[in-house]
């Protein structure tokens, strides 16, 4: 299975793009067609492993329902009538609409949206900034990853919480994540660590597969993560389990944190989280005493009402135990020290292209400084609920066009019913995607995008690995489909913008320090940089104080609590007891299946047969209370709307909450129940963990609205 030719087969190296992990892949090509893929057994990254989503790439690439050429709406919006047009016509039409709206209403009237844009985030942002609109969004900016990253940067001066050195650890604390579903390489390494004898603690409202492997499972009420973390901190401080020398030398504000932790005695934390005090104590001791310990966290801690405080509370654990940038702890990545031209730091974003007076028009600019403005510690973008409000009211200015790339907001954005009505009123909508998704169906122009077998890319997303980069390579061409980056380059030309000329020009630029052009560099495969630990010992931490900021002066200046704190969800049985009489169950949207990622994958036969329908886990006692049996079709209702699901009666959840999976289209969409009305301070997150809902059997009436 070496790279090369064998009989009529050619085997080529590439890298997967189905999630951020970017696993190294061998692709088997016969007569110009990729017939099989598998994990590259020589890869130091994924060691031959590949998840089901990645393995199903041939069914995605050669799917009969893919869009193969640009489409133009030929009937009423959403009617499903399309005419095939040329790329020249499609890009010309988009360019003339966007430029017309820009000239008439200003660049801010054009809203750009994207999804996870795995591997081209700053490149797309650079395109939007060159066009000049301050209003671009990516749900993750406030809903996933960026809030917890922001907390890490505030506290440690860099991204350290996302990288866990599983290979050398003695204790893994998995927080609000089930890595087998979402982080395959991390899951593989956690299981290797576990087999080596490392301890595993899992904090999650649901008894997931990874929780079933745990030595200690903390099943907390959805949305109470900050209280649980502060409870653990209080034990570690009270029992003097923290690393005194490290705290003294490398942190500021420890005495203030000690006082704050005193406000979270275990009795209070147990009452908030529903996790027994003795378990929290055990977890704190295990994490602190069984080091080196690392934390692997995910989106669950972002989608709460006080996302910065929640992820900051978790940051305190490595900060006071010294599990920072040491073997087996949480570590800083190596790309920057290695001098690699990283897309995140190499100004592909072109922030300077937006003049200050335009930037200040960004929706959310005043209210959400850590998301939208100059105070943002990561890439700043617009605030989705503020965009939706602006669409509704026309204030402070009209929004006219939507350019959506690789994203399905009508499925993935909260408050589906409301946003669909508002999207339909836009003057012009363009969507680039692989399929006619629920969002693409209401577009005026649809562009056919490419899968990861169809384009070149440098895999330096700092979520994939902290010490290596991989290379995705163009192996096939399907219909008239074009890569995301090619589309930006060609659309820029039509728009009259000075942007990259081609994917090749850009990729050659990205590898310029590594060799002679992308093709030559990429053929060599993954590049690993030697890991250097304890980087702070040479130059301190990249914070204003040069130390880890347990007490964040910066947060105080922004009008927030400088110390981590807990805030109750704005829609819970405790904060809204009256509403809870009508909607007695806690709703969390943390459900994930190993075969789907966000709204992707449900059209792929190999994947779909593993998870046929939207299944909602309901505790047996709750099910009997509502007279629901396993497999029943049920209706879930919130103050926003209703959805359908199949009841899955299981002990994986607790009596008080039910877990629903986002990503299903139509009446199975959980975002018919969610809302954008509550927003977290500073970053504007709308909470999805801990809302209220009710359930009933579908035979008592179907879905309305």
């Amino acid at each position, binding site marked *: 299975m070496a790279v090369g030719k064998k009989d009529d087969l050619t085997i080529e190296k590439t890298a997967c793009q189905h999630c951020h992990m970017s696993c190294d892949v061998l692709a088997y090509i016969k007569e110009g067609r990729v017939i099989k893929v*598998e994990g590259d057994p020589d890869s130091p990254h994924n060691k031959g492993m590949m998840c089901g989503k990645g393995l199903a790439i041939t069914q995605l690439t050669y799917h009969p329902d893919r869009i193969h050429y640009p489409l133009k709406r030929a009937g009423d919006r959403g009617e499903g009538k399309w005419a095939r047009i040329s790329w020249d016509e499609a890009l010309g039409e988009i360019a003339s609409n966007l430029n017309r709206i820009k000239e008439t209403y200003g660049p801010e009237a054009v809203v750009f949206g994207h999804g996870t844009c795995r591997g081209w985030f700053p490149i797309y942002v650079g395109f939007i900034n060159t066009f000049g609109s301050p209003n671009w969004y990516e749900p993750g900016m406030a809903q996933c990853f960026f809030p917890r990253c922001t907390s890490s940067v505030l506290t440690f001066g860099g991204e350290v919480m996302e990288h866990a050195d599983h290979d050398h650890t003695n204790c893994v604390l998995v927080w609000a994540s089930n890595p087998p579903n979402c982080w395959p390489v991390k*899951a593989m390494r956690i*299981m290797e660590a576990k087999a080596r004898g490392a301890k595993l603690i899992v904090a999650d409202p649901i*008894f997931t597969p990874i929780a*079933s492997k745990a030595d200690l499972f903390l099943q907390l009420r959805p949305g109470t993560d900050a209280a649980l973390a502060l409870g653990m901190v209080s034990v570690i401080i009270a029992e003097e389990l923290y690393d005194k020398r490290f705290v003294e030398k490398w942190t500021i504000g420890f005495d203030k944190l000690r006082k704050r932790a005193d406000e979270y005695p275990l009795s209070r934390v147990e009452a908030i989280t529903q996790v027994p005090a003795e378990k929290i104590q055990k977890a704190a001791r295990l994490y602190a005493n069984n080091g080196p310990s690392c934390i692997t966290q995910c989106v669950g801690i972002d989608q709460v009402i006080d996302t910065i405080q929640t992820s900051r509370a978790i940051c305190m654990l490595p900060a006071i135990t010294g599990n920072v940038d040491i073997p087996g702890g949480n570590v800083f990545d190596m790309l920057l020290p290695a001098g690699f031209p990283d897309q995140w730091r190499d100004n592909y974003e072109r922030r300077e292209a937006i003049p200050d007076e335009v930037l200040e028009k960004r929706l959310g600019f005043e209210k959400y400084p850590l998301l939208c403005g100059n105070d943002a510690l990561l890439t700043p973008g617009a605030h989705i609920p503020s965009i939706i409000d602006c669409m509704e009211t026309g204030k402070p200015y009209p929004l006219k066009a939507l350019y959506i790339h690789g994203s399905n907001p009508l499925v993935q954005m909260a408050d589906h019913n409301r946003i669909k009505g508002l999207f339909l009123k836009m003057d012009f909508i363009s969507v680039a995607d692989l399929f006619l998704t629920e969002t693409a169906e209401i577009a005026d122009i649809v562009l056919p995008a490419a899968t990861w077998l169809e384009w070149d890319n440098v895999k330096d997303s700092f979520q994939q690995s902290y010490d290596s980069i991989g290379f995705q390579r163009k192996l096939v061409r399907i219909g008239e489909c074009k890569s995301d980056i090619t589309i930006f380059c060609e659309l820029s030309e039509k728009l009259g913008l000075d942007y990259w000329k081609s994917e090749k020009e850009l990729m050659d630029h990205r590898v310029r320090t590594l060799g002679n052009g992308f093709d030559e560099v990429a053929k060599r495969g993954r590049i690993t940089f030697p890991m250097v630990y304890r980087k702070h010992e040479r130059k301190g931490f990249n914070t204003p104080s040069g130390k880890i900021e347990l007490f964040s002066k910066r947060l105080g200046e922004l009008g927030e609590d400088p110390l981590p704190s807990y805030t109750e969800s704005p829609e819970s049985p405790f904060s809204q007891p009256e509403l809870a009489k009508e909607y007695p169950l806690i709703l969390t949207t943390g459900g994930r299946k190993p075969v789907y990622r966000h709204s992707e994958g449900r059209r792929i036969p190999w994947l779909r047969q593993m998870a046929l329908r939207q299944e909602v886990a309901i505790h047996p006692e709750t099910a009997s209370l509502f007279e629901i049996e396993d497999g029943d079709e049920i209706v879930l209702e919130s103050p926003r709307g209703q959805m359908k699901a199949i009841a899955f009666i299981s002990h994986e959840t607790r009596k008080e909450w039910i877990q629903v999976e986002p990503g299903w289209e139509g009446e199975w969409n959980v975002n018919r129940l969610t809302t954008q009305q509550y927003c977290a301070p500073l970053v504007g997150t709308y909470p999805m963990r801990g809302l209220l809902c009710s359930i009933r059997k579908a035979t008592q009436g179907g879905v309305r609205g």
Partner: protein
Amino acid sequence: MAKYNFLFEVDRCVYCHACEIACMQENELPSHPWTRVVQAGPRYKGKILALDFLQQRCVHCEDPFCVRVCPVDGAIERNEDGIVLLYHNLCILCQACVNVCPYGALEFNPDKNIIGKCNFCLDRLREGHKPSCVHTCMGRALEVLGEEELELRVAGKKAKKAGLITYLLNTISRECDHH
């Protein structure tokens, strides 16, 4: 002495379905993979909440019922390595084997009009590669081992053997007490 044995370390399976999808890809099956992962639980074992995942597939029995009931000579055979192979070109689709298999490991595949069962990825083994399910396994729960390696791996541990599959149990600590 079997040359090839499957080792399935139950505690390491993370229920990702990659083995099933790899199997369908390798054997060009639209559906009905020749190995399945079955979820057992979550269920209470006393106070402990347990969730396990099991491999359901042909175990390559020493004296397979499927070989005995097959009306066609040579359509199902146990080869010199103990691997039970079903030859689709000889099979008459009578499904006698499907009904008799105690492991539910043979299945009629309506998409391909064949009886499907695990063939140990024999072609891959002959080329020195691991079966596709083993190659891709996320939890590193699946392995293929020779007899001696297998004995070393299971020595002193709780194991259960059926045909060429050895289930290795309780290999990682899990004290997941639940309230």
